[in-house]
């Protein structure tokens, strides 16, 4: 990769076909997928299909939003799946009063959410600390919690399934507001905030500046370490919330499974969405579209009788193509 400073805003000049494809390819792919499904997949245009797809894609998008910010600084976060497992293991322990007795169920649920998400955020901060303080490469620094994090969640629960039926908590995953699933609202809010932060705030500009050229941005007064700490903490925060959504939907928490493989799903969504892994760019809406595309590809193939394993191969091809087109669009 080159380490030239990338412009913060797209330059205005004639677009080549690859650039057009790179910019609108994901939208185009989504539209094509929708058209295909409308024609070929039975019962596609129903509210139920929409709900199934949205609820399935929610957790990926929530995690991928944090991942987008991390990747925009030129980093990566492999620990998100493990942090989801920790958050998912902690919350039931709190609201089922396994750690300490709590009388009021609303208070218990509130505490559970705060503690679970808080711990995930702190662990994200720990990732950021390793990366900013010791200058450990992000992939290795977050590998530590990738390996240890799931182990911690398993040790906390002794590897056992925690089942529960607490409607007050499960509203996160099963509740609806005006007919819209609650987690979809959470997702939309997170996406909106992140997109606003990237476009309109100094912090957002600093994230992009660090990803573009860390040294130059440090020399021009950006507090590189603080920004890095913050993005990894945000990634941990997002993973914490996603963990809660998953266990709320499942009515149970299995430390062996919650968030398994999530880091790859999220990274794939970010890459398909047009954020380059080398940093300096953050397309939050792109990430949302990327995750939706991947979900819709999977759904389309499954709904038309293609086995999940073949869908995986198709997904691999799509990721490579998407990244390749974006690189062509950028380099020319």
């Amino acid at each position, binding site marked *: 990769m080159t380490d030239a400073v990338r412009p913060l805003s797209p330059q205005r000049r004639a677009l080549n076909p690859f650039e057009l494809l790179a910019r609108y390819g994901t939208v185009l792919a989504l539209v094509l997928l929708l058209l295909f499904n409308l024609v070929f997949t039975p019962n596609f245009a129903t509210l139920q299909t929409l709900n199934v797809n949205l609820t399935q894609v929610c957790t990926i998008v929530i995690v991928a939003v944090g991942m987008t910010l991390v990747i925009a600084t030129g980093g990566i976060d492999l620990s998100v799946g493990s942090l989801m497992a920790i958050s998912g293991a902690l919350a039931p322990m709190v609201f089922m009063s396994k750690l300490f007795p709590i009388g009021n169920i609303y208070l218990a649920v509130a505490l559970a959410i705060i503690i679970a998400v808080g711990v995930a955020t702190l662990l994200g901060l720990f990732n950021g600390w390793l990366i900013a303080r010791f200058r450990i490469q992000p992939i290795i620094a977050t590998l530590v919690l990738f390996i240890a994090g799931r182990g911690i969640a398993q040790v906390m629960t002794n590897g056992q399934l925690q089942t529960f039926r607490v409607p007050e908590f499960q509203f996160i995953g099963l509740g609806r507001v005006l007919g819209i699933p609650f987690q979809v609202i959470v997702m939309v809010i997170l996406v909106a905030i992140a997109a606003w932060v990237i476009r309109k705030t100094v912090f957002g500009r600093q994230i992009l500046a660090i990803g573009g050229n860390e040294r130059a941005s440090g020399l021009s007064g950006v507090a590189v370490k603080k920004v890095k700490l913050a993005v990894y903490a945000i990634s941990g925060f997002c993973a914490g919330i996603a963990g809660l959504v998953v266990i709320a939907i499942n009515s149970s928490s299995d430390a062996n499974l919650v968030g398994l493989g999530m880091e790859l799903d999220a990274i794939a969504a970010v890459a398909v969405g047009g954020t380059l892994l080398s940093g300096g760019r953050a397309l939050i809406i792109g990430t949302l579209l990327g995750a939706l595309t991947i979900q819709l590809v999977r759904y389309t193939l499954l709904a038309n009788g293609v086995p999940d394993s073949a869908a995986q191969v198709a*997904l691999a091809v799509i990721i490579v193509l998407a990244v390749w087109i974006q690189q062509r669009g950028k380099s020319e």
Partner: protein
Amino acid sequence: MNRVHLARIAGAYGVVLALALLILFGYLRYDNFLSPFNIMSVLRYNSMFALVALGMCFVIMTGGIDLSVGTVAALGSVTAAYASPYGPLAGIGAGVGVGLFVGLINALLITRMHIMPFIATLATMLAASGSALLFANNRSVPVSYQSGFTELGQGNFLGLPIPAIIAAIAFILGWLVLNYTATGRGVLAVGGSEESAKLMGLPADRIKTLVYVASGGLAGLAGVILAAQFGAGQPIEGVGWELFAIASVVVGGTLLTGGVGSVGATLAGVLLLGILFTVLNFENGLGWISLSAYWQSVIRGAFLLIVVILQARLVPDRTVHQ
């Protein structure tokens, strides 16, 4: 002597020292820790990881990464299981062949399409996993017990486990290539600075192709041993192997930025992380404490943490200039 050299030496000798201390600890604390049976089973089981880590070591020395090794091993175990009725050589051919093929795809994606190694091998990781499940029909594939194929995983030769012998040969070859051939020097040069390597006239793309193909082939070979050892091709095995391999390589002092590395220290890294698990089992056997198997990942993670912090303190500037 500059700090990078210092880190390399500290990494290489540090990990050997830590390994020696761990073995000494085990020997003093537990009966039978150094019994032939225990040594053989540790070597037999960890030879698969050693092969994968060897390939990863070369990839990382060029400054790249190969996330596909785990699922390639799974895919290799499936194809090897199908070929197992025709004998051990057919099994090896099928497993290694499919590994080489995926490795070649990785190399083409990286050198021709200029896709970053992380993304390219992430995609082939998914593809290999999907292919393994497709070929195996979502089940494990039993191997033939009549053809002698299972000897590759379960057999002994001159009293040593055959998979360990295979791994040892691979490591000796790897060590020779790295230290005594132009290719080996080229690997380190490309990892040190690809630009400079190209300007010096080194065939950087060919070297990169070579390491990814080798990594795929070794992962396929690990899959052959997996199938032979457990009597079945296992399409869902191999999850997380790539990260275990990366951890072993890093514990062995090889820097992820490339340009520095040691084959021997990587082997020590694999054994260290593997023997930690054995020690945990023996400790539980004593009955004083009862740590569940879940602790092994916590301990491995903590171990990795200590190593990377030590490395970072010894080479404070390295990552910044990358």
